[in-house]
C-alpha cells in the first residue's frame, strides 16, 4: 500500500477535527453495512459482511466433542481469524499472523467472557448434550478478504450474523448408557435448532485521531490513530468486553464518554443487523 504524504495526513486530521471526514461522514457516523448469510453451504452457519471496502466472511462449524473436566455441563467454542493475502500483500506467507492473532484474541475476549466461561455472550450450556460426556464444539472461523479499516467491528458483526444463521442438528441420545460408556448418538440430518443469538454482543471501535475520536475508521484514518478502544455491547446495553490498543494515554473521563457513544452506535448496529437478517430470511421464504 502506498504511504500517505504529509499533506494527506494533515487533510485527514484536519477533517476529523472539523467533523467532516474525507468521505464526507461525521465523526460518529458509521459506513453502511451489508450482511449476507448462508454463503458457505458446507458450514453450519456462515455470513459475509461488507463495510465500505472492508469485507469479511465468518463460518461456524459444529462438531461433537467431549466437554472439559472443569465445565462438564458446557460446550466449547473456539474463535480463529485468518487474514487472507488478497486483503494486502503484506499478509502473504506468515505476514498476517500477528494481526490474525490480535483479532482472534480480541474477539475471544468480547464474545467468550472470562476464564471460567462466566459472562460469555454465547450461551455455552445450550451446547451440552450429555453432561460430562458429549457436547457440541463450535469452531468459529473468520476470514478477512478485503481490508479498509475497522476489521474488528466487521468480524464481530459477521460472527453474530453467522451464529444467527447456524443450525445445530438435533441429537437423539440412546438411553440406558451406563457410567463410563460413551452413549450412542444419532445426529439428525433433517431437524435443526436455530442458535439463540439474542445475547451475542456486537463490537464498536472508537479510534482517536488528534483530539477527537471517530467511529468506523477507514485504513487511512487508522494509520493516523493514536489509540483505539473497542467495546462490545449486547442488546440489553451491557458491556461485554473492552480492549484498548495503542500506546497513547487516555483521560478516564473520556473513556466513559466513549462508552456512552459506543452504546448508542451499537444499538443502531444491532438493529441494522437484525433487520438485514429478517429481510434475508423473508426473501428466502418467498423462494
Amino acid at each position, binding site marked *: 500500500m502506498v504511504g500517505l504524504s504529509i499533506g494527506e495526513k494533515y487533510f485527514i486530521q484536519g477533517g476529523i477535527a472539523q467533523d467532516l471526514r474525507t468521505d464526507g461522514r461525521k465523526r460518529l457516523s458509521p459506513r453502511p453495512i451489508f450482511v449476507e448469510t448462508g454463503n*458457505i*453451504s*458446507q458450514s453450519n452457519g456462515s455470513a459475509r459482511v461488507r463495510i465500505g*471496502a472492508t469485507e469479511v466472511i465468518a463460518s461456524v*462449524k459444529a462438531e461433537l466433542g467431549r466437554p472439559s473436566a472443569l465445565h462438564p455441563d458446557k460446550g466449547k467454542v473456539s474463535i480463529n481469524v485468518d487474514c487472507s*493475502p488478497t486483503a494486502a500483500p503484506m499478509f502473504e506467507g506468515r505476514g498476517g499472523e500477528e494481526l490474525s492473532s490480535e483479532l482472534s484474541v480480541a474477539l475471544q475476549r468480547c464474545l467468550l467472557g472470562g476464564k471460567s466461561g462466566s459472562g460469555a455472550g454465547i450461551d455455552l450450556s445450550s451446547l451440552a448434550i450429555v453432561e460430562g460426556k458429549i457436547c457440541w464444539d463450535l469452531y468459529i*472461523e473468520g476470514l478477512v478478504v478485503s*481490508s479498509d479499516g475497522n476489521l474488528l467491528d466487521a468480524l464481530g458483526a459477521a460472527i453474530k450474523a453467522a451464529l444467527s444463521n447456524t443450525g445445530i442438528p438435533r441429537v437423539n441420545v440412546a438411553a440406558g448408557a451406563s457410567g463410563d460408556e460413551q452413549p450412542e448418538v444419532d445426529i439428525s440430518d433433517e431437524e435443526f435448532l436455530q442458535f439463540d443469538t439474542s445475547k451475542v454482543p456486537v463490537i464498536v471501535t472508537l479510534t482517536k485521531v488528534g483530539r477527537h475520536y471517530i467511529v468506523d475508521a477507514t485504513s487511512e484514518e487508522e494509520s493516523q490513530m493514536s489509540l483505539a478502544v473497542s467495546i462490545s455491547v449486547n442488546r440489553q446495553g451491557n458491556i461485554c468486553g473492552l480492549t484498548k490498543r495503542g500506546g497513547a494515554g487516555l483521560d478516564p473521563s473520556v473513556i466513559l464518554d466513549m462508552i456512552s457513544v459506543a452504546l448508542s452506535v451499537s444499538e443502531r448496529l444491532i438493529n441494522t443487523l437484525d433487520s438485514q437478517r429478517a429481510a434475508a430470511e423473508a426473501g428466502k421464504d418467498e423462494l
Partner: protein
Amino acid sequence: MSSKETWMRQIRAEIGVVAKADGSAMFEMGNTKVVAAVYGPREVQNRSQQLNANALVRCEYTMANFSTGDRMRKLKGDRRSTEISLVIRQTMEECILTNLMPRSQIDIFVQVVQADGGTLSACINAATLALANAGIPMRDIVTSCSAGYLNSTPLLDLNYIEDSAGGADVTLGIMPKLDKVTLLQMDAKLSLDTFENVMQLAIEGCKAVADYIREILLENTKQLQYRRGT
C-alpha cells in the same frame, strides 16, 4: 454430445471484489468459490529477485479453514498449497507480457473460500479475470476446466464427490484465441483413446468458460465507459 454428463456446473463471476487491490475477481464453479487479487505491477520487494528484462510474477494459493467439508487445521506453506501456487504462477506467467514491465513485480493472491472440486480451474479463471481487471497486458486470457472418466463415461467439471470416486481427473488450461494448451494435469490412468476424448471434453469446457469470461469483461468495460460518461 449434449447429455447431462457433458454439462458444466453453473459458473458465476464478479470483478472488483477487493477494492484495495489493483485487480480482483471472484469466481464460482458450482459450490467452489475462489477470490483472486492482483497487486502490481509494483516495485520489487526483494531486490535480489529483480529481473532486468521481465516482470517478476509471484503467486500464493491459500485455502480457508472452513473451505472443505472437514474443518482442517491448515498450515500455511504446506506442500499441496506450494505446488498449486507454482502451477498457477507458471500458467499465468505464460500469458502475461512480462517483457513490457521489466524490473517490476506482479503478485497474484488466490484465496479459496469454498472447495467442492475443480479448485485449480476456478483459481486460474479467477486469476485471469483479476489480471484483466488490473489492466495487465496479456497475450490472451487463460481459462481452465476439469474433466474426468467415471463408469466408462467422460464427465465435465467434476465436483468433490465425483473426484474422490477414483476415476481419472484431467485439469486443462488453454489460451482460447491462440488455441494453445498451457496447463495439463492428470491423475489415475486412462487409455490413450479415452484420454483424447476426455481432453477434448475439457477443451470444450474451457472454451465455454472463455465465452463467459469475455462476456463479463465486456459488461465491465461498458460499465466503466458509462461511468466515464462516454
